[in-house]
C-alpha cells in the first residue's frame, strides 16, 4: 500500500515559507499568514513614494501577494496616482452601471455601495477581478470608504501559486497545456443581473489555465468560478469535472488563504493574477461602501 500523493500541500507550503526574504529598509511589514498577506506601515501613499521605497513595495507585493497599507488617508486622485505607478489604469465596463449601486462619473474608479437594498454585491464569490478582459487586471487597489457598523466585511484571499503547486504532477501536466474561456456574462449577468449596453456584449477571452507570473516566473492557476465558462481542449463533462475539482481545491485549502480585516484608513493592494479573493458579505443589512482602482499590464497572463 502506498499513500496518496497529497502531502504536496505541506511540502509546497514549506517551500514557500522557506524562501529567503530580505529585511525591509523603508517599510514595516507584519505578515498576516505564512502563505500570503501582509500589513504595511511606515509609508504615506498620499505623497509621492520615493523610488527606493516603491521598489520595496513591489518586492513586498511579489513576496506576499496581498498588502494592507494601514493608516492611509487618500483622496481619489492620490489613490489613482499611486496605482498608476504599477500600470495602466483600468476602466471597468460596469463603472457607471447602477447594477452594483455605486457608480461614479470617473471611469477609472469602480465604486459601489452595499446596503439594505442590495440583493447582490461586488465580489461575493471566489474570483479574479475581470478575468474576462483580454488583458485582465493585474493589480487592484481597494479603499473601503464606509465600514459596516458592527464589524464584518472582511476580504479573503487565496494563493493561486500554491493552489497550482500543490496539485499532483500528472494533474499539473494536464492543466499546463489547457486554455479556458472567461466570459463577462458569466460573472455579471448571472451574478449581478447586469446587461451589456445595447448592441454590445460583455468581453469574453481565452487565457491559459496555468500561467507564469511575469515578475517571479512562478506558475499560478488562473481559472475562477465567477468568469470561467469552460476549458477549451476538454469535453463538456471533463471541463465541468476539472473546474469543479479546482474550485473545491481553492475553496477548501484554508492553508493557502488569508482573511484581511478592514480598519479605517486601509488601502488594500493585491496581485489579481496570483490570487483570488472573496468579499465576505456577513454584515447585511449594514452598509459598506468601496472604491477600487485597478491596473493592467500591456499583456494578459501567458503560459
Amino acid at each position, binding site marked *: 500500500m502506498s499513500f*496518496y*500523493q497529497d502531502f504536496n500541500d505541506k511540502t509546497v507550503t514549506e517551500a514557500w515559507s522557506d524562501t529567503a526574504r530580505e529585511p525591509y529598509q523603508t517599510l514595516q511589514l507584519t505578515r498576516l499568514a505564512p502563505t500570503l498577506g501582509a500589513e504595511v506601515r511606515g509609508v504615506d501613499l498620499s505623497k509621492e513614494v520615493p523610488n527606493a521605497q516603491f521598489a520595496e513595495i513591489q518586492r513586498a507585493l511579489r513576496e506576499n501577494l496581498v498588502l494592507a497599507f494601514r493608516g492611509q488617508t487618500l483622496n481619489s486622485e492620490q489613490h489613482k496616482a499611486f496605482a498608476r505607478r504599477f500600470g495602466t489604469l483600468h476602466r471597468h465596463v460596469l463603472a457607471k452601471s447602477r447594477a452594483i449601486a455605486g457608480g461614479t462619473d470617473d471611469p477609472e474608479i469602480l465604486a459601489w455601495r452595499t446596503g439594505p437594498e442590495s440583493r447582490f454585491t461586488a465580489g461575493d464569490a471566489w474570483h479574479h477581478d475581470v478575468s474576462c478582459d483580454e488583458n485582465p487586471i493585474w493589480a487592484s487597489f481597494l479603499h473601503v470608504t464606509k465600514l459596516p457598523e458592527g464589524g464584518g466585511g472582511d476580504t479573503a484571499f487565496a494563493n493561486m501559486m500554491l493552489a497550482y503547486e500543490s496539485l499532483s504532477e*500528472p494533474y499539473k501536466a494536464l492543466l499546463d497545456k489547457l486554455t479556458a474561456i472567461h466570459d463577462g456574462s458569466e460573472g455579471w449577468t448571472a451574478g449581478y443581473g447586469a446587461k451589456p449596453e445595447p448592441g454590445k456584449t460583455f468581453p469574453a477571452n481565452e487565457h491559459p489555465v496555468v500561467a507564469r507570473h511575469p515578475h517571479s516566473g512562478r506558475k499560478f492557476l488562473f481559472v475562477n468560478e465567477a468568469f470561467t465558462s469552460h476549458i477549451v481542449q476538454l469535453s463538456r*463533462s471533463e471541463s465541468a*469535472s476539472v473546474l469543479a*475539482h479546482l474550485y473545491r481545491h481553492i475553496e477548501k485549502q484554508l492553508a493557502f488563504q488569508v482573511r484581511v480585516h478592514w480598519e479605517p484608513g486601509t488601502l488594500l493592494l493585491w496581485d489579481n493574477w496570483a490570487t483570488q479573493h472573496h468579499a465576505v458579505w456577513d454584515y447585511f443589512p449594514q452598509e459598506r461602501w468601496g472604491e477600487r482602482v485597478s491596473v493592467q499590464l500591456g499583456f494578459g497572463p501567458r503560459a
Partner: protein
Amino acid sequence: MTLHIQALGPAIGALVSGIHLSEPLSDSSRDALLQALLQHHVLFFENQPITPLQQRDLAARFGPLHIHPIYRADPEVPEIILLDTSTGNPPDNDNWHTDVTFIETPPMGALLSAKLLPPSGGDTLWSSGVAAFEALSPAFQKLLDGLTAEHDILKSFHAERFARTPEEQTRFDAARKNNPVVVHPVIRTHPVTGKKGIFVNEGFTTRILELSAPESEAVLALLVKHIAKPEFTVRWRWKTNDFAFWDNRLTQHYATNDYLPHRRVMNRATVLGDKPF
C-alpha cells in the same frame, strides 16, 4: 450450420445464430467466435439450453477457468457460479464493473446462461471501454494514459453481506487473504487488438495512485459517469436459455436491480486472462 452475426449497435454487441453451444466447439467455430468477440465485445445467443458441465467445457475452450472466492458455485462444477438472486439474496451487481479485476490476471471473458428469469426486468447492460476511451478529449486521454489504480475485492464484497455465518466468515477471510489489493493501468491496451480502453470500474477500483485523493475522486467519478453513456452501451433483455459471451478485458457491465421480489438465476463461467498493460 453457418455462423450468422448481426451487430446490435456501432459500439458494442452482436446477436449470433447458427451454432449450438451445448455441442463440442470446433476449432473453426471457436476462432470465428473469438473474431466476433474482438469486433463486438459482447455476443448474444438465443435458445441455447446448456448444462453446467457443457458450459464449463465450452468456456474451457477459451482458456483456464477462474473459481470465484466468494460467490457460490454449482455443487458438481466449481467453475460455474450460481448467481441466484431473490428477496433473501438481493442483487449486488447493479453497478458498472468489469468482472474480477481484483486479481493480477483479470478474466479475458465470461459466459453467462439465463436459467430462470423474473416476469420482467433483470436486464444487463454492457459498455465498451474502448469506445468510452476514444470519446475522451486527447488532453484527458493523455492524463489517464500512464496512471495506475488500485483494485480491491472488498469494494464490492462486504463482510455485512458475505460473512454472516462462521462458515461464510472463513470463506470471506480466505478471499481477503488470497486477494490482496492489486494495481492495474487506468488505460489498458487490449492484448489482441492493440486498442486502448478505460480499465477502472466502480465495482473494484478504489483510487488512482499518482493523483491526490481529491483529484483521484474527481477523475474516477467522471469516468464512472462517462462509461455509462448510452452511446457506448448495449442493453440485453433476457429470455430463458439466452446466452452471453463477453470480452471482459475492455468492457464493463451492469445488472439491473429492478425485479424483486421475483427470482433470477444465471450461471457464469469465467475465463482467466493475462496481466493488463
